[in-house]
């Protein structure tokens, strides 16, 4: 306590004017002196009188304290006193303190972690100057917020509510900095992008609106800080250097600041290129097509004094103008503003549902921890009944005792909160630099900020008060005479106590968590075995972007033909095919489709939106997609032949009427092309989410709808690791400057499984924490009841009780509570599973595996927790016990 004393004295004098204390002291002394004067006058000697006067005055320190209380000024002094006492008490029971602090640290750490992620994704504005007034545009209530470039220009120039509107698109390009050409991800951004956001360059300059002079007029590239740091080793002289992007020369003009990671929260681009040069980056010239929506996001700062509602009304009036001017392409005229960074309504709802679920569960963990600690505190309070009774008998007020117990609780909760926060900060830092996919620059900016600290400490304080409150009634009802007289013998009450209720609550919560994590694990297992509509095993993916190597459109088909032929000569390769983007890859193409009889092809008349793939004839066989009817593509489905497509079952059902009549029927594309359906394939999974509902998909021949950005699929009978180098060699012999990215399809699927993996891991961790909490809870309860009833058990053993009877006496209650709690929790957990359905593939509560699993898990937990107390109860030696008493 040395250190504490050292702190205490300066603090006390700091908060309590020394003058006041001196005055009080002098006044009381003056009183005693006056009394002594009187006593001397009545014949006492001076010494005797002084002594007598002091005795008559009474407990001077106590009155001084009361005086200070009357002035309302000694709150801090009392607090320090309480703190000092609490520290001493807690130090005397290190086991209890440790258990309590760790329990809380876990619970509060989990909450801080989840809150930090919610905060980063939904509460905190994007990390740009004045981020709170930054909004992105959402068209109608579409799921995708992509726009066409001409529409963007109109919106930018015709709105009156934004300071400026910037736009960007995400692209992958082959960047040759003089060494190995590599594919990197970056933005093509409007000229005003940096100016609209108010970002200043770290090095060199940014491009501006004034740099844009028509298509491909601004061959400038801005590097991200991270890319510059890793690829140019912080070389200050990089500005002005030439690099080649997809073989086109670009000049490095600047480096973005380290804290700027673009305007999509979880994606960190490596470069920024003016959007007018988009066709050089993406080899796809859609700058003037109003129907082609590829601009990923439009965003800007709303002008000061303009409300978001006014701004969207203004945008919608621009939309009305667009609709009347271009009825064929733009028929959805309303716009609304959404938070930037999560691509509008596309990612936000799923992520939000998931995080809401996690927050609920983390809250439950904290509640369980509070229940746990509450019962621990109640047990302690009854053990300390004697101490409390003595203090009351000696004149301490009950409020003073409660205050001290509360201080103890809050002290523990603060220690736990601080520890939990520290651990979560470490984890969050890790998460911020986490790179789950080698080929895709994920960036999750969840570094904690002040609000995370406040929330964690607030939670700690609230939970401290929550579990501190539990023993209050016990203390208030304590009768000092009874306790002192009877000693601390156990009350043999059979009624339901607060502690019992707390234990049931806690076990119920734990069972909910165990149920949730089992449902998630089950969902993941199921999604692993779901019918994907293709067979990823034994397939290698080799991603090539011919446009990156400078191939012009007319040379691409021939080159693709040569690539497939070359791949087929690799030993072990049984099939090879091309697809623009494999299913379940990040990034996919969609198009509206129309029924054959629809004449007015405005978007609102569309029959459905379908995912589409452009494939070479060998695709179905290579991917392992089963053809149900009709035929596959052949080389005769060429550019000049009638347009054909293969569709899946869902497409046939929703657009063509039935599966049986699908082959041979027609549908229309948005540009009016009639397409003949020649084949029908099984349903599968397409977008980057295994939990998706069946959706329409169609396949087009690559020859009729060319794409330069393609992936080679190679099915091999040999070990894939041996085939990969052969692919590289072959590709180099075809074109040495062509960047290739090779991985197995299984590896690639990690992206699609990412969501359910994260869900499973987080739910699993929460389930584990719940399980740990309930083990400690049951253990505490069982151990306490055994130790309280040692004497009784000893007598029973002495009277000839069997082992089972002893166990039943010692642990019957704990086991009963466990059963009630588990049943309650299982019931609640099954209800909560509805919430999980958002994130977990086919989460269903009525799954026998889950039911049995939960029951089994709870039994194991119960056995674990009661093992030691049971051993103790069984090893009772009545002789030793009776001798001790």
């Amino acid at each position, binding site marked *: 306590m040395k250190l504490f004393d050292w702190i205490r004295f300066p603090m006390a004098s700091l908060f309590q004017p020394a003058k006041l204390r001196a*005055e009080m002291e*002098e*006044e*009381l002394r*003056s*009183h005693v*002196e*006056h*009394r002594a*004067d009187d006593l001397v006058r009545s014949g006492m000697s001076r010494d005797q009188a002084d002594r007598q006067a002091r005795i*008559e*005055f*009474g*407990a*001077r320190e*106590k*009155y001084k304290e*009361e*005086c200070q*209380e*009357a*002035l*309302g000024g000694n709150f801090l002094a009392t607090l320090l006193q309480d703190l000092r006492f609490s520290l001493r008490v807690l130090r005397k029971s290190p086991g209890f303190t440790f258990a309590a602090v760790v329990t809380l640290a876990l619970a509060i750490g989990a909450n801080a972690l989840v809150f930090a992620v919610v905060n980063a994704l939904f509460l905190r504005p994007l990390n740009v100057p004045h981020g709170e007034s930054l909004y992105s545009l959402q068209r109608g209530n579409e799921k995708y917020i992509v726009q066409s470039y001409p529409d963007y220009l109109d919106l930018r120039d015709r709105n009156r509510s934004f300071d400026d509107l910037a736009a960007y698109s995400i692209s992958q390009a082959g960047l040759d900095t003089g060494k190995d050409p590599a594919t990197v991800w970056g933005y093509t951004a409007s000229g005003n992008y940096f100016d609209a956001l108010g970002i200043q360059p770290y090095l060199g300059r940014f491009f501006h609106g004034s740099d844009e002079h028509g298509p491909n007029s601004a061959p400038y590239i801005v590097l991200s800080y991270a890319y510059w740091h890793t690829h140019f080793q912080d070389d200050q002289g990089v500005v002005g250097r030439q690099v080649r992007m997809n073989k086109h020369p670009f000049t490095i003009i600047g480096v973005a600041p380290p804290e700027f990671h673009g305007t999509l929260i979880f994606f960190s681009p490596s470069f920024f290129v003016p959007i007018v040069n988009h066709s050089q980056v993406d080899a796809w010239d859609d700058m003037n097509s109003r129907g082609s929506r590829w601009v990923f996001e439009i965003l800007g700062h709303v002008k000061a004094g303009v409300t978001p509602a006014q701004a969207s009304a203004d945008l919608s009036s621009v939309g009305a103008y667009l609709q009347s001017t271009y009825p064929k392409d733009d028929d959805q005229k309303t716009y609304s503003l959404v938070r930037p960074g999560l691509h509008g309504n596309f990612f936000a709802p799923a992520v939000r549902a998931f995080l809401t679920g996690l927050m609920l569960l983390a809250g439950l963990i904290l509640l369980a921890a509070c229940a746990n600690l509450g019962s621990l505190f109640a047990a302690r309070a009854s053990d300390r009944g004697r101490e409390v009774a003595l203090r009351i008998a000696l004149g301490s007020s009950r409020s003073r005792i409660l205050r001290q117990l509360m201080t103890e609780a809050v002290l523990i909760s603060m220690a736990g909160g601080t520890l939990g926060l520290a651990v979560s900060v470490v984890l969050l830092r890790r998460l911020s630099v986490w790179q789950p996919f080698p080929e895709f620059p994920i960036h999750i900016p969840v570094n904690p900020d002040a609000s995370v600290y406040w929330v964690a400490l607030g939670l700690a304080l609230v939970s401290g008060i929550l579990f501190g409150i539990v023993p209050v009634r016990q203390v208030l009802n304590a009768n000092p005479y009874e306790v002192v007289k009877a000693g601390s013998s156990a009350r043999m009450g059979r009624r339901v106590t607060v502690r019992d209720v707390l234990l049931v609550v806690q076990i119920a919560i734990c069972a909910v968590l165990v149920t949730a994590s089992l449902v998630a694990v089950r969902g993941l297992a199921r999604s692993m075995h779901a019918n994907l509509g293709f067979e990823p095993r034994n397939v290698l993916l080799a991603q090539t972007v011919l446009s990156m190597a400078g191939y012009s459109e007319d040379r691409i088909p021939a080159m693709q033909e040569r690539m497939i032929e070359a791949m087929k000569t690799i030993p072990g390769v049984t099939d090879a095919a091309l697809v623009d983007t494999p299913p379940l890859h990040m990034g996919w193409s969609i198009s509206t489709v129309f029924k054959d009889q629809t004449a007015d092809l405005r978007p609102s008349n569309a029959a459905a939106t379908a995912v589409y793939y452009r494939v070479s004839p060998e695709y179905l066989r290579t991917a392992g997609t089963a053809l149900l009817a009709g035929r596959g593509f052949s080389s005769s489905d060429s550019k000049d032949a009638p347009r054909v497509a293969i569709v899946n079952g869902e497409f046939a059902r929703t657009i063509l009427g039935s599966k049986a009549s699908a082959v041979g029927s027609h549908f229309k594309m948005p540009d009016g092309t009639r397409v003949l359906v020649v084949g029908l394939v099984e349903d599968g999974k397409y977008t980057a989410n295994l939990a998706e509902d069946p959706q329409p998909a169609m396949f087009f021949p690559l020859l009729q709808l060319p794409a330069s950005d393609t992936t080679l699929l190679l099915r091999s009978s040999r070990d894939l690791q041996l085939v990969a180098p052969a692919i590289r060699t072959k590709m180099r012999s075809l074109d040495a400057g062509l960047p290739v990215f090779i991985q197995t399809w299984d590896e690639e699927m990690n992206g699609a499984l990412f969501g359910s993996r994260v869900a499973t891991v987080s739910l699993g961790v929460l389930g584990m924490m719940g399980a740990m909490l309930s083990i400690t809870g049951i253990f505490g309860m069982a151990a306490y009841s055994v130790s309280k009833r040692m004497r009784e058990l000893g007598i029973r053993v002495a009277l000839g009780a069997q082992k089972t009877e002893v166990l039943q006496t010692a642990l019957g209650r704990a086991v009963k509570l466990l059963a009630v709690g588990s049943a309650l929790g299982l019931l609640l957990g099954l209800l909560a599973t509805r919430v999980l359905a958002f994130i977990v593939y086919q989460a269903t509560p009525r799954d026998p595996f889950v039911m049995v699993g939960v029951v089994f898990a709870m039994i194991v937990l119960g056995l674990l927790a009661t093992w030691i107390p049971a051993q103790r109860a069984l090893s009772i030696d009545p002789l030793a016990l009776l001798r001790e008493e």
Partner: protein
Amino acid sequence: MTDQAQLLPGTLDLLILRAVSLGPLHGYGILLRIGQISGNALMIEQGALYPGLFRLVKQGLLKASWGTSDNNRRAKFYELTTAGRSRLQVETDSWNRLAGAIAAALSQQPEEA
């Protein structure tokens, strides 16, 4: 000593106000004055006076200033403020009503039924 009465809770403040209303007094003086006006019938522990005094000063019913006592010692003298004086009036009235009512109730002879 044994025939002294315990103070009812809350009555000490009233007694202090009453004692001080007759002129400024220091703490010990207040105690003597209370003894004098109550005919030494009340038992007050000497120190218990002070929390009450501090409370009344905090409420603005008393004001305190340092001075010199008859014994030629430094002492803190208390006197009534205007608020203190009106409070004394109110409290005295309500005490009298209460005391009268209780006295009446206790002196009432039960009527034979």
